[in-house]
């Protein structure tokens, strides 16, 4: 009987990522609603914070271990997880919609003959049928999608589902299994960390700058505010295309789609392709000289003013609050 739901957790450099706890919570929640047995799987070498996985209502955690698996290998991870899911006879697989999850989920879907719905932001079970909601056109529209397959694979947009801690059950266990003979046909040979401390795709707070910053030399104002808030620096397409900021900071339809708790847009007018990428943020602050700028239509709070003048003062005010 295929009555299992399997969450795939993600570690980087031996540490489980925050989004993995979101996966665990969704697995526990869906297991209850769909009357399935829950389990979670992590592939890697040493994992420092694996004990934390037992607090989210999933009582069986399996760690598949090999020293060659600490960094991602698409061939190795695909083989190992597909085999595990087949043996378990899992009906649902849940991944995070990260670079790794997006890379892996569709490959595994082919191996285990499953349908794949990515970047989900909401689920509903209606008349026993599982329906997922996901953004399309970078969030300009949403679609409700159902599976036509027997095995169902979903990926979760990060920062949308809350990681909910539960009381730890006494039966909760972690099993470690050593894996032999990893397929390393495609493997990571190096990780080049980017200069920014936090990536926009993972940040809970984002401070973004656009053309209103007037030039790359003024982006330190955005960086300072981001640092005080513990957030990441983002940029509009105009700022990236002008060569002021690297592409990995671009937010919008041809950059990253983000849903942080707080998004502060500085000197960004709000072209439709930018709004598409950030309008699902929980709170939006806009600072812009032009009071007609479209960004104000979706901002919770706005200040009509020059970002160059507002930013340093705002940074100071928040510093004071935090001290």
């Amino acid at each position, binding site marked *: 009987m295929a009555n299992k739901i399997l969450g795939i957790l993600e570690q*980087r450099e031996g540490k489980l990522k925050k989004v993995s706890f979101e996966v665990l919570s969704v697995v526990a929640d869906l297991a209850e609603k769909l009357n399935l047995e829950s389990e979670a799987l992590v592939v890697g070498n040493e994992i420092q914070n694996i004990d934390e996985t037992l607090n989210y209502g999933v009582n069986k955690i399996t760690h598949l271990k090999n020293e060659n698996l600490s*960094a991602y290998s*698409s*061939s190795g991870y*695909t083989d190992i997880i597909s085999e595990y899911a087949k043996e378990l006879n899992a009906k649902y697989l849940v991944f995070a919609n990260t*670079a*790794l999850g997006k*890379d892996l*989920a*569709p*490959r595994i*879907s082919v191996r285990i003959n499953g*349908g*794949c719905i990515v*970047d989900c932001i909401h689920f509903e079970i209606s008349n026993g049928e599982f*329906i997922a909601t996901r953004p*399309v*056109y*970078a969030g*300009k*529209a*949403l*679609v409700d*999608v159902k*599976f*036509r397959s027997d095995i169902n694979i979903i990926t979760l947009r990060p920062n949308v589902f809350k990681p909910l801690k539960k009381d730890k059950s006494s039966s909760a266990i972690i099993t470690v299994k050593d894996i032999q003979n990893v397929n390393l*046909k*495609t*493997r*990571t*040979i190096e*990780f*080049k*960390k*980017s200069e920014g401390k*936090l*990536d926009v795709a993972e940040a809970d*707070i984002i401070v973004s700058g656009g053309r209103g910053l007037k030039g790359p030399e003024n982006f330190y104002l955005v960086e300072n505010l981001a640092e005080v*808030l513990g957030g990441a620096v983002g940029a509009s397409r105009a700022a990236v295309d002008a060569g002021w900021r690297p*592409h990995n900071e671009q937010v919008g*339809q*041809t950059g990253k789609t983000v849903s942080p708790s*707080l998004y502060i847009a500085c000197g960004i007018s709000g*072209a*439709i392709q930018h709004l598409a990428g950030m309008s699902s943020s929980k*709170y*939006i*602050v*806009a600072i812009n000289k032009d*009071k007609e700028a479209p960004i104000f*239509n*979706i901002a919770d*709070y*706005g*200040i*009509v*003013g020059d970002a160059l003048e507002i930013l340093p*003062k705002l940074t100071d*005010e928040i510093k004071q*609050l935090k001290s």
Partner: protein
Amino acid sequence: MNIAVCVSHVPDTATRIVIGKDEKSIDQAGVTYIINPYDEFAVEEALKTKEKFGGEVIVISVGNDSSKETIRKALAMGADRGILLKDENPRDSFSIAKALADEIKIQNCELVFMGKQSVDYDNSITGQITSELLGYSCITIVVDLKIENNKIIAEREIEGGKEVVESELPAIITTQKGLNEPRYASLKGIMAAKKKVIEEKPALQTDNLTEVLLMKKPAPKNPGRILGTDSSAIPELVKLLHEEAKVI
């Protein structure tokens, strides 16, 4: 070496999306379609690879007649010939990948480029599925690529940095902004493209594994508050973020 580039025909990113009458797709009236922006990097990389190693660049697209415009655009940039796998019905990524894999096999392409995602459905899974169906390696979200003999070294953009990945041909590479600067089609290229062949054939029939039940607009955001027109509004903003929104 035969090189395939898979392209999709998508609404311009500046399009205001209106939901169609079927409530499952967009209203196409007045929508301008373009080559998927990420596919332009794929076309450019295919042309650069051909310039280095020789071979033929074949553009493949799954869609209806209008997709020929996008194929033609890739031909104008310099690709050699096009193939339109015709289907009028909506397909999910899985059945698009099946049709592509089928044709890539027929064309005997060892190297395949496609955009890391198309900006309509934003799935970003077609490349990976196609590679599994073919048994090819696949490297996604690539911003730097080197191919020597059968070996590939690529950089892929991930959260917080770049992963340098080693793999081997045959392979599918999904392309990200930053990989290259796509060339503009010259007038000569546009004229030449008119004479290039676009072969049309029915796309391989296969079942979808997912089905769109409803397309809808996201709930509109309530209009926000303008707190002021100069820095005197800052204390109130900080207070609201701290006490009302509770995000700082």
